[in-house]
């Protein structure tokens, strides 16, 4: 068993590559017979030579469009899939060589593949998992009581899972994944299908568990609000390649070139359109404009405005993170470097 490095790196990936083979479909009966005898395959690079490391306690958003290689990477990290090439360690262990040993150190939630027994109460699955993870009886009782309280599920744990709402089920799934105090939590689309209130609760709970237990979280989600609320670092992957790896703030700083500003004043407003500023709406005491931050200094504009006007209210809107990510994909497609 390797030791974790001193800088508290918990996950290391070096030149990780994974490809899938898929049969090329052939039309016609003759073609189908030929394909059965001599099938032709095409190779799809799901993950293409990626490298990164994650420190203990980090909250990392692993994002990308469908088929980008997110889930494949997560499955290699949890030992389910074998890479074609490259090295990876999680908690100082090779997931492929020490899959069983690693299982005690990681927790997984695949949003589309529930682990709870559908017809039995959630508490039965909790008890089963306590045996699977070889938890001491007292230790388990203490832990399950704590998590039941934290995820507020005491009212529902004795009801068959099939009778629970999706949100209640997901909270139970989280308790299940955290029961054995994992060091790393892999979350693959954990909020899929949930309503906005439950999503918010789940996000808060993930952050809380990270804060209180120091658990490292790797999250994949198509919901950018998940990433924005939970993660302090984001890795963008597309066509199996990493195209961005930094903090969310830096993404915004680098790629946000337009801001929408809405101002209300106590005096008749003094604000003129010029290069870099496009007025969308204007009345006597109110103006709404798009500011192109590549052409004008946003802070300077605000200062100038305040000198001439008595401010009543102001809101500044940034484009949604989805638009920024989409922009990154497009830029990469055009071959721009990062």
């Amino acid at each position, binding site marked *: 068993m390797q030791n974790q490095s001193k800088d508290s790196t918990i996950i290391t990936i070096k030149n990780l590559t994974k490809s*899938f*083979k898929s049969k090329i479909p052939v039309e016609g009966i003759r073609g189908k017979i030929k394909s059965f005898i001599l099938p032709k395959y095409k190779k799809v690079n*799901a993950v293409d030579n990626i490298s990164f490391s994650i420190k203990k306690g980090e909250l990392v958003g692993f994002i990308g469009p*469908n*088929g980008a290689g997110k*889930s*494949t990477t997560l*499955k290699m990290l*949890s*030992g*389910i*899939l*074998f890479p074609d090439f490259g090295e990876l360690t999680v908690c100082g262990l090779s997931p492929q060589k020490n*899959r*069983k*040993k690693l*299982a*005690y150190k*990681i927790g*997984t939630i*695949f*949003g*589309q*593949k529930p*682990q709870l*027994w559908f*017809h*039995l109460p959630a508490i*039965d*699955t909790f*008890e*089963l998992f306590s*045996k*699977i*993870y*070889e938890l001491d009886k007292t230790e388990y009782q203490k832990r399950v009581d704590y998590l039941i309280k934290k995820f507020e599920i005491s009212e529902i744990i004795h009801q068959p899972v099939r009778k629970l709402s999706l949100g209640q089920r997901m909270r139970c799934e989280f308790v299940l994944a955290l029961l054995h105090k994992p060091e790393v939590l892999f979350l*693959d*689309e954990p909020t899929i299908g949930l309503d906005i209130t439950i999503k918010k609760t789940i996000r808060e709970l993930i952050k809380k568990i990270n804060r209180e237990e120091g658990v490292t979280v790797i999250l*994949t989600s198509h919901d950018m609000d998940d990433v924005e609320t939970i993660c302090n670092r984001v890795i963008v992957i597309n066509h199996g390649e990493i195209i961005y790896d930094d903090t969310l703030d830096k993404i915004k700083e680098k790629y946000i070139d337009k801001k929408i500003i809405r101002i209300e004043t106590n005096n008749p407003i003094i604000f003129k359109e010029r290069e870099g500023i496009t007025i969308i709406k204007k009345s006597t005491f109110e103006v709404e404009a798009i500011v192109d931050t590549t052409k004008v200094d946003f802070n300077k504009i605000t200062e100038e405005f305040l000198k001439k006007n008595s401010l009543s209210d102001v809101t500044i809107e940034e484009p949604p993170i989805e638009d920024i990510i989409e922009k990154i994909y497009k830029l990469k497609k055009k071959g721009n470097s990062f």
Partner: protein
Amino acid sequence: MELLKYYYISKINFKNSFVYVADSFAASLFIAFITFIFVNIWSVVFNASGSEIINGFTLPMMIWYLVMTESIITSQGKITIQIGQEIIRGDIANYLNKPYNYLVYKYASTIGASVTSFFITMFCAGAVALIMIGPLNFDFTIIPFIIITAFLGITLHFTMMSTLGVLALWLEDSRALDFLYQKILFVAGGMLVPLDVFPLWFSSICVLLPFSYAAYYPAVLFVRFSFELFIQTILIQLFWIIVTSLIALVLFNILSKRVSINGG
């Protein structure tokens, strides 16, 4: 501790199987119908032969033999297809990241779930046999021995099915293999009729294969018990269980490197 977790896996599956009691009863009604058909077929055959014994079997023995083979074989569902589907759909991901062996997990689950359906089938098909043919001349002291050999038969049936199921990692589907296996069991496994009714050359080949030790021998012991045959049967059952489970485990270790789960 390691073995204990598999016991709890069996236990939760046993508990879960009660959810499907109505379903098991419905499935067993079909087995009861099959028993009804065979009672009629064998009655005609025995009447036509003018003998009370055919190849060492009386009419009640022939019918109760069928009750036992059906109970063993149908108790655990189609594991080959189940494993194949878990591999194809990617559900296997939820098993591979747990601290247990996937195939032993499947075995523990199957044993837990099959207890209920074994007894339900026994009850439904047995009721038809009892009403139409009457009881078997049965010594109740042999029940523990029958339980042992039936349990080993169920285990062997599982290890054979799981070996074929694992091949889905290579073939990407397991339905064709399951179809083939079920048909072999029908004939070479003595599932519908005892091997004794076949020509000697064919039954001699069948007893060399593992299929007959899943259902034929436990059912023969059920209707015609002898301690020597019991010892011989369980030893050969254990031999085939070890061989087939080793093949399944080795194949799984090799082929699990080929698991390809695309997408979430």
